[in-house]
């Protein structure tokens, strides 16, 4: 089929490389891979795995766009759109009513506003402070010796009695240690941690204004504890993709597709 355009999108995050192969029928394969060593090497490994999963040869892919941190280091890439644009495009493709994207990553929060066409109109980000980001969740998981995936469900069982007063994640760590020694139930501590993160995200959201539909993307969006706490703060209808961490890569693949389509 001459019109069967296949494109790839790679999104280099702080911790993971995410990849999507996009064809005529939609997403052909997707991957999330721990970043190790050089960005370019990790990107190549991720791309090869994407191809293997879809049983495609490199020659069958028309365009590859890379986004994320150090995206210009990805030597395979034909284009390097910003992650802001990619997250919005990806979310808009999944949910055409998208007007606001909350991208909740390992080391930063981004809030993106878009129009009905999925064009970026405004954005706000915090990548200066770990409060409200995934790395804070990871630190807590490590302290409590539980896995990241267990955290959200446990937090949902919190009585909600405990509130963390620290803004800074470093100070919050000491606060958590004190609560552990005091014998506060694990669930309550986790509830307070999730609530603290959600309130930081919501504060940032208020500064830029949130218009529905709101879509959560990024790895932290997988966490049900954050989902619940944040929904309560925002009091808005929220959409959560099945695979929130690949939305940026999907957006890159969509932009690659637009570019490849225009060329033909």
């Amino acid at each position, binding site marked *: 089929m001459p019109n069967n355009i296949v494109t790839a999108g790679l999104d280099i995050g702080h911790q993971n490389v995410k990849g999507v192969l996009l064809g005529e029928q939609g997403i052909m394969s997707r991957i999330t891979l721990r970043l190790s060593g050089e960005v370019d090497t990790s990107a190549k490994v991720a791309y090869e795995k994407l191809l293997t999963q879809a049983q495609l040869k490199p020659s069958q892919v028309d365009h590859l766009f890379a986004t994320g941190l150090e995206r210009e280091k990805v030597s395979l890439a034909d284009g390097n759109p910003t992650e802001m644009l990619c997250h919005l495009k990806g979310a808009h493709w999944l949910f055409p009513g998208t007007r606001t994207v909350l991208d909740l990553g390992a*080391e930063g929060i981004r809030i993106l506003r878009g129009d009905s066409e999925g064009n970026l109109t405004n954005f706000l980000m915090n990548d*200066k*402070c*770990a409060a409200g980001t995934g*790395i*804070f969740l990871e*630190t807590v998981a490590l302290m409590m010796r539980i896995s990241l995936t267990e955290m959200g469900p446990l937090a949902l069982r919190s009585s909600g009695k405990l509130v963390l007063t620290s*803004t*800074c*994640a*470093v*100070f919050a760590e000491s606060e958590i240690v*004190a609560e552990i*020694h005091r014998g506060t139930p694990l669930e309550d501590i986790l509830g307070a941690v999730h609530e603290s993160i959600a309130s930081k995200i919501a504060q940032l959201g208020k500064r830029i204004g949130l218009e529905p539909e709101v879509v959560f993307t990024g790895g932290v969006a997988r966490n049900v504890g954050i989902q619940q706490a944040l929904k309560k703060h925002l009091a808005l209808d929220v959409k959560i993709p099945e695979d929130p961490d690949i939305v940026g890569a999907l957006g890159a693949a969509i932009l690659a597709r637009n570019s490849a389509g225009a060329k033909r």
Partner: protein
Amino acid sequence: MIACGIDVGSLTAEAVILRDEELLAYSLIPTGPRSAQTAVEALKESLQKTNLRPEEIDYTVATGYGRVVVPFANKNLSEISCHARGAHYFFPLARTILDMGGQDCKVIRCDGRGKVTNFLMNDKCAAGTGRSLEVMASLLQIRLEDIGPLSLESLGEPLKISNTCVIFAKTEVLVLVRQGVPLSQILAGLCDGVAEQVKGLIRRVGLEEEFVISGGISKNIGVVKRLEKKLGVKAHICFEPQIVGALGAALFAADFVKKQD
């Protein structure tokens, strides 16, 4: 007349005993899990250095985070007022005081009598507080007190640590270690970062000489030297910068005794 000041901070607690406004004895101990117990121990330790009994103390003022739970205090006052008063005792010309503690950082402006006229504090973010250096010391497996001297072994422009957040900076530092960057250069970058943070806070309040630094970080020569260079002023530091708050509290206690008489 015997007056006592107790400063229960987030990481250390200090007690100061004054006889007629003369420094008689002091103690400095780590803050334990129970602030009240810590205060009792700090007092005990300072009294041991004198031949005084607790009943002989005429008045006690407590300050610091744990000030409200000090069981034997007659009154408690904010650490802002106490630091200004204490700094003024050591350096009567002090007009700007930087108190760099374990968990916060304060810039205090005072008048010729040691009375607070303005202040600004950062207690929200660990960057620019002693805590950040503690975190890094444990990450790099060195002693806190070695950070300053080691950082001065690095010559030339300090390496730039691009992250402000201590949590993010930890990752950045680990990458530098893996790249084989010498420890002294990394420490120089960290001290410079703290100095830069603090400079921002001082700028917002305004700097008037003379300039005094109190609190634990003033013992870190790496931070002090870089801050002096950035501000273009010389900092006064007393022989034990961690007792400034407790000393201020003790001076206020002496005032109360005088008023009672």
